[in-house]
C-alpha cells in the first residue's frame, strides 16, 4: 500500500523527455527577455509541435477570421504565455499513452478532460479573465493523478470501484477510504515533481474541494464547476460515474448564472471534436 501520493511517482517520465522543446521554451519565456523570433525558432525545431500549434490557432477554439500560417504569427497573435500553456498541454497529453483499458479508454479520459477545459475556458471568458488558457490547461490536468493510479495501483483502483458501487459515494472519497489519498493529491504531487507553476498544482489538488484552496480558490472553483458540466454533458469519462456535488458558495464565487449553462454546453459541443483531433495531430 503506498503511504503517500509521492510514492506513486517514482519513475514517472519527465516532461522534458517527451518534449525537449518544452524545457527550452520554459527557460526563454520565464527569462522575460524572449523575442517572438526566439520563441518561434524554438517551437519550429519540433515539427510536430509546430503543426499542432498551427492547428490549434486555426481552429474553432480561437476562431480567428484569417488563416494563421506561420508559427511566429501564431506567437504574436495568441501571446507567448498562451502558446507556452498550450505547448504544456499538448506535451502532457502525449506523455500518457496507455492505461489498463478496463478502467477507461485513453480517448474517453482526454475527452472528459478537454470538455472540462473548454467549459472552464468559456467560464473564464465570461468573467473576462485575462489568461483563459491557464484555465484550459489546469482542467486538462485535473484528473491526471488518476492515470498514475490506474497505471501504478490497478488492484487498489479495482477495489475502489467496487467499494463505491457497494457504498455509493464519489470516486475521490472512495479513493481516500481505500487508498488513503485521492487522485487530486496525486495530480498535485505530479505537478510539483514536474515543476509546473504552483497555481496549477493548487487547482488540481483542490478541484473537488475548492473551499480549501488558499491562493487560487477562484481557479479551483471554476475547474470544479467545469468538471460537473463535463460530467453532465457525459463527454468521455475519467473513471468517475456521477456528477460531483457543488456547494452553492462555489457557484456564487464562480459568478455565472444558471441561464448561462445552455450557452456553455453549446460552445463546448462546438469545439470539442476539433480540439481532440488537434492534440493528436502530428502532420501539418
Amino acid at each position, binding site marked *: 500500500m503506498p503511504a503517500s501520493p509521492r510514492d506513486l511517482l517514482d519513475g514517472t517520465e519527465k516532461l522534458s523527455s517527451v518534449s525537449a522543446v518544452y524545457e527550452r521554451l520554459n527557460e526563454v519565456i520565464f527569462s522575460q527577455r524572449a523575442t517572438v523570433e526566439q520563441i518561434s525558432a524554438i517551437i519550429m525545431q519540433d515539427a510536430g509541435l509546430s503543426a499542432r500549434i498551427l492547428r490549434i490557432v486555426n481552429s474553432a477554439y480561437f476562431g480567428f477570421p484569417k488563416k494563421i500560417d506561420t508559427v511566429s504569427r501564431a506567437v504574436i497573435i495568441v501571446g507567448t504565455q498562451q502558446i507556452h500553456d498550450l505547448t504544456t498541454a499538448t506535451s502532457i497529453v502525449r506523455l500518457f499513452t496507455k492505461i489498463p483499458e478496463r478502467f477507461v479508454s485513453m480517448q474517453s479520459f482526454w475527452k472528459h478532460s478537454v470538455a472540462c477545459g473548454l467549459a472552464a475556458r468559456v467560464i473564464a471568458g465570461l468573467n473576462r479573465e485575462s489568461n483563459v488558457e491557464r484555465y484550459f490547461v489546469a482542467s486538462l490536468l485535473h484528473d491526471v493523478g488518476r492515470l498514475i493510479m490506474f497505471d501504478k495501483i490497478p488492484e487498489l483502483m479495482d477495489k475502489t470501484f467496487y467499494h463505491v458501487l457497494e457504498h455509493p459515494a464519489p470516486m475521490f472519497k472512495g479513493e481516500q477510504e481505500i487508498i488513503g489519498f485521492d487522485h487530486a493529491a496525486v495530480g498535485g504531487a505530479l505537478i510539483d515533481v514536474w515543476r509546473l507553476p504552483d497555481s496549477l498544482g493548487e487547482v488540481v489538488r483542490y478541484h473537488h474541494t475548492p473551499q480549501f484552496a488558499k491562493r487560487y480558490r477562484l481557479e479551483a472553483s471554476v475547474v470544479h464547476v467545469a468538471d460537473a458540466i463535463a460530467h453532465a454533458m457525459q463527454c468521455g469519462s475519467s473513471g468517475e460515474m456521477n456528477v460531483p456535488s457543488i456547494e*452553492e458558495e462555489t457557484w456564487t464565487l464562480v459568478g455565472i448564472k444558471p441561464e448561462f449553462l445552455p450557452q456553455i454546453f453549446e460552445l463546448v459541443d462546438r469545439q470539442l471534436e476539433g480540439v481532440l483531433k488537434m492534440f493528436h495531430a502530428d502532420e501539418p
Partner: protein
Amino acid sequence: MARIALDRLAAGMIVDDAVTDLHGTILMQKGSVITQNGIKILRMWGISEVSIDSESAAEHSVSPEPSVDPRFVEEAHREVGVLFQHANHGSAFTQELMRLATLRIAKAKSERG
C-alpha cells in the same frame, strides 16, 4: 429550496418563499401551487425567479422539447437521476444541469431510434 428562473417554472411546483413585488407586496404566498396563469402574472410583475420547494421542482421540472418521444425522456430522467445521485439537488444550477442533461440524453436516444 431552489431558485428557479421564470421560464423554467412549471405548473404544479410549490412556492417555498413568498414572492413579493419591489414594494414588498405579496404576489404569491409560501405554499402556493404554481399555475400557468400564475406564471403569466409573475411575468407581468417582472419577477425573474422564484424559490421553489426542491422536491416539487424536481418532480415538475420542465420537460424537454415535445419533439422528443416521451419514452426517451422518461428513460433519460432515470439515467439523470443516477448521474446526479451525489449532486446538491437544492441548487438552481443542479436543476438546470439536470434539465440540460435530460434533454441531451433524450435527444441522443431519439437519434439512435
